[in-house]
Structures are given as structure tokens and as C-alpha cells.
């Protein structure tokens, strides 16, 4: 059981050295734990739904998170970004709670590259699906070939297409590796610090503030980048219209800032 749940490299204990990762069952247990926390919070918050003013702690917290994600979606994607709120909010909640679980437990779903890759595949897959819905299948893939070039430069268009396809695939890798690296890296840093303090002094606990910040920032970055990708594929036609008219796109200011 200890091996299944990855116990032995917890925040408080001295590090065991090499990280072996979770088994399938162990990951499912942690996913169940994360979903249990999420559903507990949502269920407590739901008690206040329908009231004019949310008075409970959980409902107020969820409302603020909802408004935060709504601002994120509308600010980056535009007015039609509201329909992506459930999608982005689910990501944010699961990733954030998983990250918080990583603070107090030996590991968490987001500290597992396989889980993060699954989440990234869903995010990028959904982005491609929305892109195809917005521009049509041909229009969406045509977009990967870059600007329309003369026939003599067809080879360049083909190369751009290949590079863009690789870029889209690499988005999965970058999203999953970034999250995995930050959470697992933070965990390894705590373990290393604990080793400095011996078996009884949890020196790694001093890293708690920066780890809390990492939890928030990584959940935000994943949600924000998904919004940016959605914005790029669903605003494509609008951007071209704006460019032709010599007007800046409404979301063009938000994207560079968000991408950073």
C-alpha cells in the first residue's frame, strides 16, 4: 500500500532518494482524493446557490473563483469566451487542488507526468475541436500553413505547416512538463532540504510559501495558456478582418501579456 500511494517521500519525512512514480491504482486513489475535496467544496458551496447573497465561506470562495475564471476567459478569448468557463474552471479546480494536495501528501496527480499529459491532451484536443468548429476542418488546418504565399513559395508553406503541427504537438509536452516539473521539482526540493535537516527537522517546510505560490501560479498558467490557445483558434477569422481593416484585434493586447 505504501508503495502504491508513494508514501516514503512525504513532505515531513526525509527523502528516499529516487522517485518511482505512482502506480495506476495509486494515481486513481489520489485522483479520488482530489475529486473528493473538489466535490466537498462544491457541495458545500451549492447550499447557498439560489440565494441572492452568498453568505457561506465555500460559496463566496467558489463565486470569486468563478468570477476570476470568467474574467480570464472574457479578457483573453472575448465575449464568446463565457462558454468555455466550465471547461477552464474544471481544469483550474482540479489542478489547483492537486497542487495543494502535493503540499501535504507525498505526491499528487499533478506531480505525475502521465496525468499531466492526459490533461494537456484534453486541453489541446479541445482547442483543436473548437478551432475546427470555428473555422471548419479545412480552414483550421489551412491556418497551420501560415499566410497565403505565391505558388513558387509552396515549399515554405509546407514547411510552416509541418512546424506548426509539431508546435501543436509540443504544446502538450510543454503544458504537461511545466506542471510536472514545478510540482515534482518543488517536492524534490523539499525532500532535499529535509535531508539537510536530518530525520527530525523538517527544513523543507520553509519552502511552503513558495510552494503555495507555485500551486496558484501553475494552475493559473495552465488555465491561462488554454485560454490563449482557444483565443488563437476561435478569433482567427476576426483577426484577419481586423488586419485587413488596419484595426488591432480586441484581444491582441491580452495575448502577449498572457503568453509571458
Amino acid at each position: 500500500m505504501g508503495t502504491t500511494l508513494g508514501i516514503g517521500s512525504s513532505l515531513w519525512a526525509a527523502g528516499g532518494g529516487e522517485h518511482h512514480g505512482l502506480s495506476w491504482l495509486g494515481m486513481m486513489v489520489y485522483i479520488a482524493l482530489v475529486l473528493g475535496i473538489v466535490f466537498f467544496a462544491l457541495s458545500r458551496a451549492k447550499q447557498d446557490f439560489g440565494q441572492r447573497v452568498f453568505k457561506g465561506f465555500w460559496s463566496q470562495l467558489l463565486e470569486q473563483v468563478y468570477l476570476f475564471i470568467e474574467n480570464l476567459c472574457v479578457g483573453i478569448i472575448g465575449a464568446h469566451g463565457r462558454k468555455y468557463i466550465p471547461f477552464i474552471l474544471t481544469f483550474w479546480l482540479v489542478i489547483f487542488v492537486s497542487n495543494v494536495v502535493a503540499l501535504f501528501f507525498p505526491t499528487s496527480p499533478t506531480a505525475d507526468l502521465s496525468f499531466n499529459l492526459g490533461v494537456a491532451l484534453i486541453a489541446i484536443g479541445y482547442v483543436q475541436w473548437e478551432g475546427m468548429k470555428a473555422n471548419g476542418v479545412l480552414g483550421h488546418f489551412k491556418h497551420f500553413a501560415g499566410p497565403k504565399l505565391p505558388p513558387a513559395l509552396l515549399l515554405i508553406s509546407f514547411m510552416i505547416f509541418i512546424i506548426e503541427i509539431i508546435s501543436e504537438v509540443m504544446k502538450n509536452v510543454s503544458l504537461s512538463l511545466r506542471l510536472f516539473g514545478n510540482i515534482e521539482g518543488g517536492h524534490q526540493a523539499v525532500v532535499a532540504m529535509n535531508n539537510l535537516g536530518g530525520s527530525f527537522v523538517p527544513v523543507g517546510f520553509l519552502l511552503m510559501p513558495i510552494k503555495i505560490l507555485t500551486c496558484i501560479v501553475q494552475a493559473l498558467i495552465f488555465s491561462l495558456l488554454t485560454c490563449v490557445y482557444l483565443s488563437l483558434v476561435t478569433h482567427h477569422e476576426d483577426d484577419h478582418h481586423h488586419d485587413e481593416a488596419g484595426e488591432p484585434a480586441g484581444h491582441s493586447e491580452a495575448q502577449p501579456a498572457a503568453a509571458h
Partner: protein
Amino acid sequence: MFIIGLILAVGGFWVSKEVKLSFLETLASQGILLDFGKTISAIGVFLILFKVIDVFYFTPLRESIQGRTTALEATFGEAESLRSEMTQMKTEFEARLAQTEAEAREKIQAQIREAQEMRTQLMAEATQKADQFLKRAQEDIARDKEQALTEIRQKVVTLSLQATEKLLQDNVDNERNRKLVDDFLAKVEVPR
């Protein structure tokens, strides 16, 4: 979506146990632990999760927030409507007040004008009556004076006749008679 998610979540277990890819072992030897079974299961869990969370939590939350926003907008709209109504009523009231003041001022002016006309008329009438009274009094005086003079003359004549009669009856001399008449006339003459 729910069924697909369920199939993927369970199918991931099978992939994790049964499917062994050589490049994954290479990655594992380099410290990158990747298990596509867990990835597939994660995708399945998320597919279920999206639907469940959306139906049971986000939709009620969104409806609640939208309902509240709508209620607030309605309240603000109502307040705005009431404010504009109040402004309109205030404007109407001020217009009516100004109109009433103007009417009152007009009435007062009309009353003053009427009073002034009445005063002028009364003054004219009074003057006219006073003139009439004066004229009548002067006429009465003139008539009384004429009448008095007439009466005096008649009395003078009467007295003269009486004196003459007395003189004739008493046979006095001319000189004495003349003296008597003169005395009498001197006595009865009234200065004009």
C-alpha cells in the same frame, strides 16, 4: 461523453498493465516516468468530470449568479426609472409652481388694476357729487338770497305803506314826515 470517459478510465488500467512500449522503458531509465495507461485514464476521468461538474455545480452556480445579476440589473433599472420619473415629476411640479405663481401674480395685478380703476371711478363720482352738492348749495343760497331780498322789499314796501298811512293819519308836517321816512329807510336798508 460519460460512457466514453468511463471506457477510457477503465481501459487505461488495461493499457497500464498490458501494453509495454520500449521507448517508455528508455524514458524511465532516463528518469522520465510515463505511463500511457494513466494518461488514458486521466482523459477518461476528465471527460466524466466535465459533464458531472458542469451539470451539478457550474450550471446552478451560473444560473444563481446570472439570476442575481439580472435581479440587480432590474433593481438598478427600476431605480433609474424611478429617478427619471421623479425628475420628470419635479420638472412638472416646478413648471406647475411657476405657472401658479404667474397666475397668482397675474390675479394680484388684475385686482390691483381693478382697485385702482374703482378708486379712480369712486374719486370721480365723489368729485362729481361734491360739485353737484356745491352747485346745488350755491343755487339754494342764491335762491334764498333772492327770496330774502324779495321779502325784504315787500316788507319795505309794506312798512313804507304803513308808515305812509301812519303819517297820513297823524297829520304831521312835511318836514317831520320826510324825516320819519328817511329814518325809517335808514333803519330798514340792508347792506348788499
